[in-house]
Structure formats: C-alpha cells, structure tokens
C-alpha cells in the first residue's frame, strides 16, 4: 500500500512538473511575443485605415509605414488630401517627431500628445509607436483559453501611459497577439484591439488586419496591411528627421 502511494505521488509530481514545463512563464511568453512581432529586420508596409463611426459611416486613410527592429518606426500619410504629407517618427526612449508640411516644420511630440488620437483614428500616438512590450510592462499569467495564453500587463514604474493595464491574448503555437484589451486609469475597459488574417509571409508572422474599437465612442479603426515587404535592408538613416520631411 505504502509503495503504491509513493508511486502515485511520484506520478503526480511528474505530471505537475511536465505541465509546468509546458507552460512557459508570463515573462517568457511576452519575450516570445516581442521576438515574433519584431522578428523581421525591417518592415515596409502600405496601410489602409478604415474608420467607422457609430452610424456605420466609413472614412478611409492610406499611409506608408516603415519599421526597423523593435524601436524605430516612420509613418507617412498618403491620403486623404488634407492629411497627405503628415509624417510621424517614433524612436527609442519615447522620442517622437511629427512633420506638418503646411508649416514646413518638424515638431517634437511631448508626452501629453502620446495618448491622443493619431490623425482621428482610434489608435493613439502611443499605439503607433514601435514597441517591445517586455521593456514597458510587467506581465502576469492569468489563464489559458483553449490554445491562447492570456496575460495581464501592468505598466512598469515610470512609463508614461494612459493605460492602467492591458489584457493580452496570445496564440500558443506562434506567440502572435490576437487581442488586446486596454483599460484606462479608472481600470475600465475602453478599447479593444483584435488581429485577424494572421499569416506567414516569408518566415515571419503578420496580421493582415487589426481592428481598434473605442467602446465609449462606438468608433472603430481597421488597419489593413495591403502591401508587405520584409528585410529590405533599411539603414538607420531612414529613421531620422532628415528623412521625415522628404
């Protein structure tokens, strides 16, 4: 009897260890997310934005987006006409610049602007930054839902953000984010981002469509990557103020 109890106990310990070994830690999951999202050396994207108001009325914007690594991103508006030429540069250490062609000036974006809407979309300037989540958030493993990991991300001390927390759903098979719930300072859910049409191009995963939904305004912005190019070999010179106004 005693021998049998020891055997069962050993078996249970083995099962627990196995389960533990199969479920990576929240930190590991988030590092994998960062690695997958920022896997390409660089990205050259042509983006279509569809803004839909609560009455279902749609507006369209087009922009080009270049990204190098995980912390340099350049966005330029191609349409509509009254926004054409507006360009946005995101650099490491929360440095962001905006070029307004009408004024022929590049303006440094102060932190208060980061949480405002980016050109009328439901994405904020902060959302448009190139980001490594593990550098900015403390993750906590909440649960596993079918084949998805669910993490809670709390901003690290000193991070300037309007989000009190993010709840993130991540595919188990490829560590790609499929959904993020954004909570405001009052800990109230106010924006949901979902990602669809996740596919592998070359050796990298990418969501062809992302949708940001503002729950209060009942307004959504769908971001569609119409053209995708990876590893074009951009130099750092692409991501400078010099290039922002070109």
């Amino acid at each position, binding site marked *: 009897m005693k021998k049998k109890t020891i055997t069962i106990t050993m078996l249970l310990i083995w099962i627990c260890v196995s389960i533990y070994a199969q479920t990576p830690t929240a930190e590991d999951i988030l590092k994998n997310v960062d690695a997958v999202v920022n896997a390409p050396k660089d990205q050259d994207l042509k983006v279509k934005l569809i803004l839909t108001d609560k009455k279902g009325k749609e507006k369209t914007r087009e922009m080009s987006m270049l990204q190098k690594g995980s912390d340099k991103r350049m966005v330029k508006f191609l349409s*509509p*006409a*009254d926004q054409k030429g507006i360009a946005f540069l995101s650099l490491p250490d929360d440095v962001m610049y905006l070029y307004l062609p009408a004024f022929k000036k590049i303006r440094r974006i102060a932190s208060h602007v980061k949480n405002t809407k980016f050109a009328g979309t439901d994405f904020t300037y902060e959302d448009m930054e190139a980001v490594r989540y593990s550098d900015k958030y403390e993750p906590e493993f909440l649960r596993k839902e079918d084949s998805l990991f669910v993490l809670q991300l709390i901003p690290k001390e000193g991070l300037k953000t309007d989000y009190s927390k993010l709840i993130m759903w991540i595919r188990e098979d490829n560590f790609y984010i499929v959904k993020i719930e954004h909570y405001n300072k009052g800990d109230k859910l106010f924006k949901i981002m979902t990602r669809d049409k996740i596919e592998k191009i070359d050796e990298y995963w990418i969501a062809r469509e992302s949708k940001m939904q503002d729950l209060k305004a009942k*307004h959504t912005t769908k971001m569609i990557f119409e053209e995708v190019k990876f590893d074009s070999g951009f130099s750092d010179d692409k991501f*400078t*103020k010099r290039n922002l106004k070109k």
Partner: protein
Amino acid sequence: MKKCNLIIIVLIIPGFSLLYAEFGIDWSGYFQTDNRALIKGEHDFSWHEYRLDLQLEAYPSTNTHFYSEVWLRTIGNSNIQASSDLYDKEKITSTNLYFKEAYLDIYGLILKDLDVRIGRQRIAWGTADKLNPTDNLNPDDLEDMWDFGRHLGSDGLKATYYLGDYELSAVFIPKFTPAVLPAGDWAAALSPSFDLPEGIILRNYSDKIIMPENNLKENSVGGAKFSGNLFNYDFSLSYVYDRDDLPLINKASFTPIDTFGTVDISAEMVYPQMQVIGADFAGSLGDVGVWGESAIFFPEKIILSTDLSALGMGIQESIALDDEPYIKYVLGGDYTFTNGIYVNAQYLHGFIHERGDDNLEDYLMFGLEKKIFEDKVKIMPVNCGFEIKDFDNFKDNYAVIFSPEITYYPYDNIEIVFGAHIIDGKDSSTFGKMKDSDDIYFKAKVSF
C-alpha cells in the same frame, strides 16, 4: 499678363493627371474662400479672398525631388472708377498668381550626408508657434494680419549637412526681398508715429524707398544654423546676416504750402542691415510640451535727417534706429488633457514690426481647443491675446484680442470655419488702434 497667367493655369490643371500618369508627377492642393465683414457700422466687407492652391511634386530620380506651390487668387473688391473700366475684366475681378515655392532638392550631393535645396523656398526656423523671432530669412508676408507667421518664399540655396542627431544648415539668398505690408488701417497700426513739429499741419505725404544696391555685398542675405539634441531637448543656434524687411524713414523734407504752417512731406525710406543671433529649444517638462526662442538683433544705426530749411529751421538730425542690440523672445507651452482639451500659451516680447529695446512690447497669447462630435467639429472658444505696451501704466496701454472659432468637417477634405476677431484696448497700443475693425468671418476649404 494676368490673363495669360490664367490661361496657363487653365491649361495646366487638366494636364496634371496626364503628368502623373506619364511622369510620376504628383499634384494636390486646395481651394479656399475667405470672407470677412465688420461687426460695427454697415458691416463693410473687410476681406474677400478666393484662393486656389496648387502643389506639384516629383521625384525625377532617387536622389532628387522637385516641389512647387502656386496660389491663384482673387482678392479685394472690384476696382471700378468709370464706365470704361467695365470693359476690363481685370478691374472687375482681379486675379493674381503667386509662386509660393518652387525648388529642387538634391540629396547626398557630393557627400552622402549633404542635402541641397535650390530655388524659391520657405526656411522656417524657430520652435515657437507662428511667432518666431529667429525666423528672419524669409520676408514677412503681413498681407493678412490674422495669418500670423506667414512668410514669402526666398530665392536661394540651402545646404544641410547631417551628422547623427546634429545638423548644420547654411543658407544663401542672393537678393533681398522686402516684406509685404498690410493694407488699410493695419498699415497705420504697424507704422511708427511720425511726430510733427508744433504748429505744423500735414497736407500731403509721399515717400520713396531706396532699395539696397544690386550687388552681392548690399543685396545678399545669408545665415547658418546648428541644431541637435541635449538632455532630451531639441535645440538650435543660428546666425543671420540680413536686412530688416520693414522700411524705415531716414530722410524727410518739409515743403511749406501756405503761411498757416501747412506742409507737404516727402520722405526716403531704407531697409537697415542687421545681424541676428538666435537660439531655441523644445522639449517636455513633465507632461507639458515647452519651447523657447530668443534672438539678439544687431541693427545698423539709421539717422533720420529732417530737412526743415524751407521753414527756416535748418536740417535736424535724430536717431531713427540705434545700433544698440535688442532681444526678442518667446516662451510657450502646451498640454492635452485626458478629456481631449488642448491648451497652448505663449509669452512674446517684441512683435514682428517692433524694433529697438525701448519699443518692444509684451504679448500673452492663449488658446484652447477641443474636437467634439467624433472629431467633426473643432471649437476654439478661448483664443485670445493681450498686448501690454507699458506695465507701469497698464490701463492706458493695453489691448485685448479675442478670436473664437468653430470648424466643421462634414466630410474628408472639407472644412467650414466660422469665427470672429474682436479687439478692445487703447489707441496707444498696436492692436488697440484696430478696435473699431472687429469682424466676423466665414471660410470654406476643400483639399484635393
């Protein structure tokens, strides 16, 4: 000539689509109407402008870029004096064509990190919002005093060398261009007062402007700017060798008309040379965006020679502009609250037309704006400025400018604007002189 311009434009517009298809030339622009009427009296029209802006852009090769921007406008009223004028379309509805910019960029010329821009260009220096003491290379365009910060393009060459986060720009403009002055009452408001000797009554005033000699030394303008980032603040240091783009009287002759002291005055005006050393910064203080800009002006000394010999008083000389340096500066900040309200405030010492340490006034500007109804409406209910001519005698030397505005964006690329310019103050202040010119305005704009 103007008709010819019109024909050219009419031919050019449909040709743009073809240019794009055949040569990759991109074109865009906007059409804007701007009508203003005085609030007081019979509500006279104070502004009437219909503007077609056309922008043409092309990348002839990987390292070159061409850009041009042209305004075709009708502005002001019909200039009809007699029935014969009715045969002249130009007098009935005058139009003008203005090349704002037309330049060629060459990227990586000779050196990989050297960019050169050649042609008519706007060189916008300074970090402040619209009122920039360091922005002196392009002449001021004061045609519309409510469009603060507008400048003419300058024909010249700009070379910029990039070294990491730092850049060094050098600008050469071969020929000096004067500022465009506002018409009507605004011109008087900006002009320094001309004190007549006691007992003298002015009948006619005429002047002539002495332009700088047409050579490299007298006519050319140049400047250099070094900019970079220190302690997370963007900064720049600049130097400009230029002429003041507003003319100054250096000679005045009094001619008596009668024995009662009535005179005609004929004056000569010059554009004084000046050197300007500037510095600016922009960054964040906590969550608040902050900027500052300062310029030290080193003007040429201008002596005003007043010829009163016809009145038996000889020739008198006084200092019209001293060569003592003076400083203009701006400090400002902005912030966006979590509810979307944006506020912007600036303190300015020395307005565009003011010269000399003793003549610089102080201005405080404040703006508040918020977008509502899913960003379809932008309201600027508190858009105001205060002019303080003399802190020691504030109540007799001030002006308050209030300019509320509402913009409606019914569709993409469409803007409809309603607003008002309301001024109160004392005649001793620049803006106070305009207190009877309050107006309301309506603008419509379509971008394409």
